[in-house]
């Protein structure tokens, strides 16, 4: 096990790579080892050097037309070849759906462990990686460590903030790697509407749950959103049971961390709460005083959202202008 050295970072998403580099830098410093980014794609040579500004000592650059866009077997074979050859101690992989599946397959090929979706990360006194992740449907946070190397952890987007770029020394090493052919074929890609994609980055979110009687009543939330420059979301029952929407906020949907989260007519089941836990301030409006959402709220109002929301919109309109 002692032959494994260095901290590696990989994501097919550039921003997520930068975010992970901050944590990777911290861990590499603690372990007194080097931080390496695996950078794969096509025509990306210029961008590779940029990574050094964000904390990397070394960039392994794999520039190949087969890597033009994410293809599971191609990317898997690149990472597998590199990791089997250079034996990193720690490998952080961006926890997108594709990244997570990649991490699981890579761990299987390397015969090692994988801890997914670590929103917290550190090393213990023995120098082993410890990941923190939400488990049991949001009821608990687990701390998990490794018994094998490389230690593979996946990191969700926005868990860490990227470093400010600065002039640093580092090297870009271009490598030629054997790339496997694909086992599946992508026939169509339909981008999601940007509004729903952006909710994870929103600063203010106003969300509705079962307390909303009609789909059209979401307009009440939109009125308030206009005043506070917010995004409108919803809980899972409105998507899965009532089929009004296709997405939702919660552990199994969008995990959000706004400055302000206003939950309207949302009871606050644990899976929903787990998805909003990192919000700075949580407001709950619900007509049931026993609703569990009040236990996790900073401000609670027992009342009818159909009365409180328009009144709040009006009050903020007056007080902010």
């Amino acid at each position: 096990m002692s032959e494994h050295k260095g901290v590696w970072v990989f994501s097919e998403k550039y921003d997520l790579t930068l975010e992970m580099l901050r944590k990777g830098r911290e861990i590499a410093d603690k372990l007194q080892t080097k931080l390496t980014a695996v950078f794969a794609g096509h025509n990306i040579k210029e961008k590779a050097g940029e990574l050094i500004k964000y904390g990397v000592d070394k960039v392994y650059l794999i520039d190949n037309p087969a890597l033009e866009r994410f293809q599971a077997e191609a990317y898997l074979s690149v990472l597998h070849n590199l990791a089997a050859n250079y034996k990193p101690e720690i490998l952080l992989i961006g926890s997108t759906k594709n990244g997570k599946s990649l991490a699981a397959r890579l761990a299987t090929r390397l015969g090692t462990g994988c801890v997914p979706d670590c929103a917290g990360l550190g090393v213990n006194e023995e120098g082993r990686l410890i990941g923190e992740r939400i488990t049991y449907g949001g009821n608990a946070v687990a701390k998990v460590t490794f018994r094998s190397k490389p230690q593979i952890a996946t990191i969700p987007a926005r868990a860490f903030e990227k470093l400010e770029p600065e002039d640093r020394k580092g090297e870009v090493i271009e490598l030629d790697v054997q790339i496997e052919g694909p086992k599946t074929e992508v026939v169509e890609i339909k981008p999601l509407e940007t509004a729903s994609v952006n909710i994870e980055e929103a600063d203010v979110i106003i969300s509705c749950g079962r307390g909303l009687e009609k789909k059209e009543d979401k307009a009440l939330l939109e009125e308030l959103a206009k005043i506070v420059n917010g995004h409108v979301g919803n809980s899972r029952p409105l998507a899965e049971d009532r089929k009004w929407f296709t997405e939702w906020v919660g552990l199994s949907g969008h995990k959000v961390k706004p400055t302000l989260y206003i939950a309207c007519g949302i009871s606050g089941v644990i899976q929903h709460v787990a998805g909003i836990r990192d919000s700075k301030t949580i407001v709950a409006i619900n007509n049931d005083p026993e609703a569990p959402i009040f236990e996790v709220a900073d401000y609670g109002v027992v009342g009818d959202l159909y009365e409180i929301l328009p009144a709040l919109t009006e009050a903020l309109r007056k007080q902010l202008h």
Partner: protein
Amino acid sequence: MKRIIVCLKQAVDVSQLKVDPATRRLITASAPKKISDFDKNALEEAVRIREKIGEAEVYTLTVSHEDAKAVLREALAIGADKAYFVNDPSFQDVDTSGTAYVLAEAIKKIGEFDLVLCGEASLDSFSGLVGSRLAELLNLPLIASVRRLTVEDNTVVAERTLEDAYETVKAKMPALITVTREINQPRIPSLMMIMKASKKAIVTWTATDLNIQQKKIGAKIEVVEVLAPKTERKKIMITGENSAEIAEKLAKALIQEGVVGR
């Protein structure tokens, strides 16, 4: 299409978990178990495929160190033709690596199949690794996080949910698919289906029956601590004579917090 194998986990029903407030530890021992939600969607999808094409067999496969017969019976009631149960006390500490290995060995022993269906992740640990690991061990094409599935001749076409797009992917069978909860609404078995299920076969295997190598099921990760998160919220209830007064107070509080009008 001859056969679909659905991997089912017996999971802790997280909606019925209780926390010991003094220690913040979860009380898992007495918590009820059920078929992991996503896996139930996988089973429902397999049964629907069979209903549509009319000839395939649906087998379920469960790995556990404890009894899971109730869960297997439910799966048979939903519509599986046969349930395989790999049950061995040595599986107590397995992680996703060991689970995938045992599933792979069981699938090899079952023999021929066209599709393996799994839930995208499990209800309790929510790791979402086993399906991908299993595809790798069986050297199968993998389509993960699928919300729509169609089978045509020897090809499977699936729509995946990604963070910023829906992606339609094609693969030759045999293939492994992991499904999301969006894919369907699992049926609730009728009394008739439950009675019929009692006549269906449950095949039980031990680690020895599958020639499981103990060193290969050794855990590669170690859970150090599982605690309920601390909630440090203000929990201030805002009251007033009427909605307008409550709203005024709330607006003021939010402005003072600096969370609106930034």
